[in-house]
């Protein structure tokens, strides 16, 4: 019995735990409860992925109402894969969180952090699993609102303005999305994704649907921080508490990308908007500009968190580029980079969190000599950095391999060259950190510091090793990605 209820359990477990956290309030207990919930959701999502891989798409009806009237939860391969990413990152971040949160968030607000974390997790998981466009909006706002709160918990007062700006931009994005949904509903009378996918092709030429498409895309691109719409991201990542940055960097933008995938390949799957409406060129151009502009911005940053925040913008460019090829290999590259980048970025931001805990800051000057003072932390960050560059045997290599291949397949030689060129920029900013950590010596008056606590190191290294494992044996992830790309390109949810 329980096996059929898993899709909903996935979402309501963190949802139920959130108010309990609000009542319990003791930081330690709340942390343990949250930890428990996140690991359970992780196990559930793995089971779901197995089920989907074996038996195909899972459909779950809330309240027993059938599809066009009730809300359906639908899980296909892409969904299940993203679900695993989100819940895995959630559980690992939680394992890591306790010490870092104690150090970076005021004690009387810690319970608030965990509550918001749980709500955010609910929202993100909900977005992925729902098969209803409006329900998706609700989950989107649940996750966004809670992430605004989490960001504002940062110690620096600039966290507040960062959260405020994110709120304004995020709300604009969500409202754009809901306008698009409204227009689609006006034309089709349904909110169910599968239904929409069937109904849209016949009316795809109408201006309303095209406008809806425009609103949806722009709204979602705001959320996923595609290049010119990324302005909220660097500050938000820089001033948020380390745990929050690690979690959001690895999940929030990724889930937004997932929404874009759903829109482009599921809702408008039979319309081929990418080529038909010139969306492909726009996305591709923006993605490439993102890869370069953001990488160059990253090179000039002194604050490491900000540096890697810009790098995130660049990496999102890679993902979008992959999707915009609209070929099986390209989309698979995008999907697998979603996974790979989540691992890498989460590891790096966790590492920076360890440094913030011990050294007190993450400016480039704080990094001096850290290679010797915090060898394990620094080594993990460097592994992450190598992944960003795309060195073989790290996950970054796999995604880049397929991206370049997708470009070659369509004879886009210049784009293939641009992809590798931009990854050379990654060498520059990663190596700034490496040189600071290993070739500069710590200032004379630096206080002696010890390695980060075990719980933090452990989660950090789980991710670092994962980034190597999935780089050496990428068959699992790649097969899932190729499979899901295939399904997406051939009709999506069915």
């Amino acid at each position, binding site marked *: 019995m329980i096996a059929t209820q898993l899709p909903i359990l996935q979402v309501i477990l963190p949802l139920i735990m959130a108010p309990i956290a609000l009542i319990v309030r003791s930081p330690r207990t709340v942390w343990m409860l949250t930890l428990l919930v996140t690991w359970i959701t992780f196990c559930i999502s793995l089971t779901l992925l197995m089920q989907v891989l074996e038996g195909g798409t899972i459909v779950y009806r809330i309240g027993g109402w059938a599809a066009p009237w009730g809300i359906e939860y639908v899980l296909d391969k892409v969904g299940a894969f993203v679900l695993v990413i989100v819940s895995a990152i959630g559980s690992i971040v939680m394992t890591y969180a306790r010490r870092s949160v104690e150090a970076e968030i005021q004690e009387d607000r810690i319970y608030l952090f965990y509550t918001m974390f749980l709500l955010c997790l609910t929202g993100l998981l909900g977005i992925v699993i729902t098969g209803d466009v409006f329900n998706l909006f609700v989950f989107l706002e649940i996750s966004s609102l809670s992430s605004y709160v989490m960001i504002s918990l940062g110690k620096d007062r600039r966290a507040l303005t960062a959260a405020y700006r994110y709120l304004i931009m995020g709300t604009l994005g969500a409202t754009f999305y809901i306008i698009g949904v409204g227009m689609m509903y006006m034309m089709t009378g349904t909110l169910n994704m599968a239904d929409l996918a069937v109904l849209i092709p016949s009316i795809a030429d109408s201006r309303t649907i095209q406008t809806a498409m425009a609103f949806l895309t722009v709204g979602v691109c705001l959320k996923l921080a595609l290049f010119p719409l990324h302005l909220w991201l660097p500050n938000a990542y820089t001033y948020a508490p380390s745990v929050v940055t690690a979690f959001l960097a690895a999940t929030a933008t990724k889930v937004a990308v997932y929404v874009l995938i759903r829109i482009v390949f599921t809702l408008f799957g039979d319309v081929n908007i990418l080529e038909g409406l010139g969306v492909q060129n726009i996305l591709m151009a923006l993605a490439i500009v993102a890869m370069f502009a953001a990488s160059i911005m990253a090179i000039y940053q002194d604050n490491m968190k900000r540096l890697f925040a810009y790098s995130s913008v660049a990496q999102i460019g890679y993902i979008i580029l992959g999707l915009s090829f609209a070929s099986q290999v390209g989309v698979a590259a995008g999907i697998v980079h979603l996974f790979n980048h989540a691992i890498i970025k989460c590891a790096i931001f966790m590492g920076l969190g360890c440094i913030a805990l011990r050294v007190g800051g993450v400016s480039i000057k704080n990094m001096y000599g850290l290679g010797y003072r915090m060898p394990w932390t620094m080594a993990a960050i460097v592994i992450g950095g190598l992944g960003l560059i795309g060195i073989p045997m790290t996950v970054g290599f796999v995604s880049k*391999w397929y991206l370049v291949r997708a470009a070659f397949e369509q004879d886009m030689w210049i784009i293939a060259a641009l992809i590798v060129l931009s990854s050379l920029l990654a060498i520059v900013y990663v190596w700034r950190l490496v040189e600071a950590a290993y070739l500069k010596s710590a200032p004379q008056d630096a206080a002696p510091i010890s390695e980060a606590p075990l719980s933090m190191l452990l989660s950090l290294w789980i991710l670092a090793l994962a980034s190597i494992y999935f780089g050496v*044996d990428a068959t699992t992830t790649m097969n899932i990605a190729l499979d899901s790309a295939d399904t997406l390109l051939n009709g999506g949810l069915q």
Partner: protein
Amino acid sequence: MSMETTIQAALVTPLIGAVLIAFSGRWPNLRETITLVTAAILFMLVASLYPEVMAGGRPSLVIGEMLPGLRIVFTVEPLGLIFACIASFLWIINSLYSIGYMRANNEKNQTRFYVCFAIALASAMGIAFAGNMMTLFIFYEALTLCTYPLVTHAGTDKAKKGGRIYLGILLTTSIGLLFLAIVWTWLIAGTLDFTPGGILEGKASNLVIGILLALYMFGIGKAALMPFHRWLPAAMVAPTPVSALLHAVAVVKAGVFTVVKVVVYIFGFDFLSGLGSADWLLYISGFTILAASIVALRQDNLKRRLAYSTISQLSYVVLATAILAPLSIVGAALHIAVHAFGKITLFFAAGSIYTAAHKTEVSQLDGIGRRMPWTMGAFAIGALSMIGVPPTAGFISKWYILNGAFDSGQMLAVAVIVISALLNAGYFLPIVYAAFFKKENEKPGQDNHGEAPLSIVIALTVTAAMTILLFFFPGVFIDLARQLV
């Protein structure tokens, strides 16, 4: 032991060695014993593969699938075995040398040094035995990364700058060009396995093949083809054992080894010689040989002069490959081995001089031969081998290359080889002459020094002796190299 196990062991031994070295860091003697023992075991493992390969066997080991349809495979073939043999053999001698050098110069972070060294050797083994381009590329990049800490060992600003150039050029070329070439090859050929006769024949237009060849040749930055050669002089900031084993043997040879391998097993040289797309390679490598030699003439720093000499000698291999005649390919394979022994001797000598006399410039070496007869004697032998004078091994490989060039009527190549031999003589012989026959310009207050520590002297004597021995017994390598064609 089955062949698969041997290959596995050859790859894993240096890594185990690295771990053990890391844990024995507190006891220098134990640490260095482990290094030596690891090196010896590795060489024995590699040597034990020799009979099988000579008999025509191609033992192979599949590790697993990395990407769907793309496996990590190791296959031992003659060229790889030559490379593995020299690298592992010279590692033993180099370790001996390192012990003397690192202790005498009180270098810091010695444990890190030995660990990185062992990892570098593991990567070199990976390159040597790689069974497809993907596997090779993985270890190629690993080699770049694990030698970076060795290059920047000193931790000074100069080392940092050298490290930047080193890493910058090697990663830029490999990620920017080689990577593209590999992906493209995979797309065109559907496989990346090294196959005798090549995998590209008839699969793409001549233009594409030409572009691919260019991507490969310039992408293999470790072959130091101009204009991507500057990393090699930059890497000379490293301690001398690093320059000796890595930047005269393991790393640079990995580069030219890859070049030969790509030409023979990816393009297939029959296919390539029929196309004529490789002519430009001849010009570029010829130019590199001459230009690097001329630059070497003007270097006063001994290690830099050696570095430019290396650049020029590496292009011999590329040139020999580009001639695309059977004999020249044999010559190329031989030159990989022969140059290794000669150049490591020269570097050993340079390090020996630095250790004993703290001299780094050519102009300071007047009369040093009388104080350090063993060192300078070995240096002279190495220099002769570089020029290609009998009875040193350098003569043999050049002989084969020249023969190949004559066979295919590449007079340009012949001219390049002859001129460069003169240039080599021009920048090596004055050193030897000054060392033995010029008067020492003793400055007041300079301490009297004699030979370098014993282990250093032993090491360089052995390699010098090997250089001469190889002239008389080149069969070991020639027989292997002949299997290539």
